[in-house]
C-alpha cells in the first residue's frame, strides 16, 4: 500500500496551488538537499511529463528550488524561492524534457558545489506524496515517510553486516532495506528505512567502517 497514513490523505498543510506539482515537488527538492547535506552552489533540474508541461502554472520550479533551500511544504518562503536562491548566489537551471518516463510527474535534480555533486530522480505520486526512484544512477525505492539511511559502499562481503550490526547496537530497527549495485565488486548502495532517527554519531560510526564510502540520512 502506497498510502499508509490518514495524513497522506488529509494533508499535507501546504502552500498552493498543487499537492503533486507544488508540495510533492518541494519534498523532492528537500530530499536532494538533505542527502547532499549542505547548501549547493548550483542546481540543474530536468522536468518530465506533466511536470514539464505545466510547471510554470503550478509553481513546480519555485517549489523544487524551495525544497533545495530546505523549506518545508508549508513554508511561506517557498513563494519567493527563486529570488532567495538568486540572492544566495545559487545558480539554477531548468530543462523541459520530452522523454516519456514511467510516471507523469518526474523530476531529476542534479545539484552540487566545488567539491561534490548529487543526482536524484523523484516522482510525485499524488496528494503531496513522493518517492525517490534513483540516486546517483542507482535505482531505489524510498517512501520518504520514515527516516532513512543511504550508504554508498564497496561491493564486498561483510559491508552490509557491519552497518546492520551498528544499527542493532543502537537499538535501531530496520523497516525496509534494499541493496543495489551497478556491477559486481564495484560501488553499491544500501537503502535502509528505519523506525528511529539516526543520530550524527551513529552516522560517523557507520562511515568509519571498512568499505563504506559515504553515508547520508533523511529524517522523518
Amino acid at each position: 500500500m502506497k498510502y499508509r497514513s490518514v495524513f497522506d490523505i488529509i494533508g499535507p498543510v501546504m502552500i498552493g496551488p498543487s499537492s503533486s506539482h507544488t508540495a510533492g515537488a518541494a519534498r523532492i527538492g528537500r530530499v536532494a538537499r538533505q542527502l547532499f547535506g549542505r547548501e549547493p552552489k548550483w542546481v540543474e533540474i530536468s522536468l518530465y511529463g506533466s511536470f514539464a508541461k505545466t510547471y510554470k502554472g503550478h509553481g513546480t520550479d519555485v517549489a523544487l528550488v524551495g525544497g533545495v533551500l530546505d523549506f518545508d511544504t508549508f513554508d511561506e518562503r517557498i513563494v519567493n524561492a527563486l529570488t532567495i536562491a538568486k540572492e544566495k548566489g545559487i545558480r539554477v537551471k531548468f530543462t523541459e524534457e520530452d522523454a516519456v518516463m514511467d510516471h507523469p510527474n518526474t523530476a531529476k535534480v542534479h545539484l552540487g558545489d566545488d567539491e561534490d555533486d548529487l543526482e536524484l530522480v523523484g516522482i510525485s505520486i499524488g496528494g503531496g506524496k513522493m518517492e525517490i526512484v534513483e540516486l546517483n544512477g542507482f535505482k531505489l525505492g524510498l517512501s520518504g515517510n520514515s527516516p532513512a539511511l543511504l550508504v554508498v559502499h564497496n561491493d564486498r562481503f561483510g559491508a552490509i553486516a557491519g552497518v546492520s550490526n551498528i544499527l542493532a547496537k543502537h537499538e535501531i530497527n530496520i523497516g525496509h532495506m534494499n541493496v543495489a549495485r551497478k556491477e559486481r565488486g564495484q560501488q553499491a548502495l544500501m537503502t535502509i528505512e528505519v523506525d528511529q532517527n539516526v543520530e550524527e554519531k551513529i552516522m560517523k560510526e557507520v562511515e568509519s567502517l571498512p568499505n563504506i564510502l559515504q553515508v547520508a540520512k533523511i529524517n522523518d
Partner: protein
Amino acid sequence: MFRNVAELVELAESKNIPISEVMILQEMEFRGKTREEVIKTMETNLDVMEKAVERGINEDVRSHSGLTGGDALLLQEYLKTGKALAGDILLDAVSKAMATNEVNAAMGTICATPTAGSAGVVPGTLFAIKEKVNPTREQMVRYLFASGAFGFVVANNASISGAAGGCQAEVGSATGMAAAAIVELMGGTPEQSADAMAIALKNMLGLVCDPVAGLVEVPCVKRNAMGASNAITAADMALAGIKSRIPCDEVIDAMYKIGQSMPNTLKETAQGGLAATPTGRALEAKIFGVSLDKK
C-alpha cells in the same frame, strides 16, 4: 488494517464503532502514537482549513494569473439577498469550497484533502453543515478522519492524482470522501457512508483534468464547487435510505480503469479539454506570453 471499503464498513460494524474511529485506531497503530497525538495533528489541519475558508469568504482573494478569485465572496453576498433557489447549506458549502480553492490558487496556505486542487470539497461541506448542526470540535475532527478513511481506500486502490487518473481521481475522490463523512456526522450508518461515497463518485466518473494554462484554477475552483453540492446531495440520498446498485469498491475500481484509459491530453497536461479551447489557449498565451503546446 482495511484494504477496501467493504473491509472498512465490516470493521466498523463488527466493533460497533464509527468509521472515523477505525481510522483513528489504525493511525495510532501505524504511527505508534497516542490518541491525543493523532487527534492533535488533525486539529492542526482543521485549523488550517478553517483559516483558508474564512479568508476566502471574507477577502477578495486573487490569484497571480488573475484567472480566479472573489467568487466565494460573490456567492456569500448573493446568499444574503435571500433570492437563492438552492438551499442555504448547499450554496454555503459551494461558496466555502471555492473559498479554499481560491486561497490555494493564490499560493495561500491550505490543507490537501486529498490534494490541493481538490482541497475545497471536504472543508467546504464541513463548514457549511457546521452552521446547521453545530458540531463539537471533536465531531469536526472525526469528520476529517472519516473522509480520510475513504480517501485512503481510493488512494491505495485507484489514484488521487489528476496526472494519473484525471479530475475524477481528485475532485471525484474528495466528493466521495465528503459525502461519506457527512453521513457519519449526521448519524448515518457506516454502510450508508459507503453508499453516499458510491453515489457521489459515480457522478464524477470520467471527469477529465484539463486545467487552463496548467494552472489549478480554471475549471478546478468551480469543480470543487460542484463537488461540494454533489457531496451533500449524495449524502442526503444515502441518509434517505437510497442505496448504490454498484458497490462502492467497484465504483472505485471503475474510476481507476477509466483513469487508465483516459488519454494523456486529459490528465493534467493542459493539452486537451478546456485547456485547448480557443479561450483557454488565449488565456494561456496572455499569462505566459506563449501557448504551452507550441513550445
